[in-house]
């Protein structure tokens, strides 16, 4: 019988992973791209359905994202699994990520990649317009 440690170490890597989609862009307005997307749901457990998505964050940027119907359609597909999408800008790059994923469920999601790619396209367009 194996000996179970009665006092396990309170630190060390956990079995949870985060996948960050990174867009390298340097502009003075990077901070304006701070946003988060949450689903609007109906029902509970097996009957839970996504009715829509709600973006919160920088006013102009959020309006652009909310107006994109193709993006909303893709988000409705994955939001039940992903939970929420965060756009986290930094000085010279912008990170787009969802929730932590357990290592059992860690796999590449092509729809999530398309969503991140489309958000990156909107960011690039906004920066180009301002320049």
């Amino acid at each position, binding site marked *: 019988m194996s000996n179970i440690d009665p006092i396990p170490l309170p630190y060390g890597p956990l079995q949870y*992973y985060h996948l960050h989609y990174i867009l390298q862009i340097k502009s003075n307005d990077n901070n304006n791209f701070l946003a988060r997307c949450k689903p609007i749901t109906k029902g509970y457990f097996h009957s839970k359905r996504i009715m829509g998505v709600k973006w919160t964050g920088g006013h102009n940027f959020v309006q652009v994202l909310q107006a994109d119907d193709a993006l909303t359609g893709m988000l409705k597909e994955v939001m039940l699994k992903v939970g929420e999408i965060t756009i986290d800008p930094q000085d010279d790059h912008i990170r787009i990520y969802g929730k932590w994923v357990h290592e059992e469920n860690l796999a590449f999601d092509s729809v999530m990649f398309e969503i991140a790619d489309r958000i990156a396209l909107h960011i690039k367009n906004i920066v180009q317009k301002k320049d």
Partner: protein
Amino acid sequence: MGFVEHKNHHFAQAKSNKEEQKSEEHGYGDIDPVIVRKLSTHEKLAEEMKQSQIGCEALPLGSHPIERKQYYSQTFSMSPKFVTNKGLVKIRGKNIDFVQLLQRN
């Protein structure tokens, strides 16, 4: 003691000779060696991306300056403080430039 050792060795050699003979008879010697390459997590991810027709390349760990910067702006509450970088994948021909894999501590 030495005699016993010699005897054992002789027996083992005889056994291995027999096995060699057997394998030659049945053609076991023709099998190509199986090479197993261990992939790290971000390399596996890159392989999955390639299967989805996305041009990408798994970079060596710690080779890009973006891996030495902060991973979270800490603007949002519940942003983690301690994470481990598990690798960076460079994307070609898309608006996204990199995909980074982080492990929670």
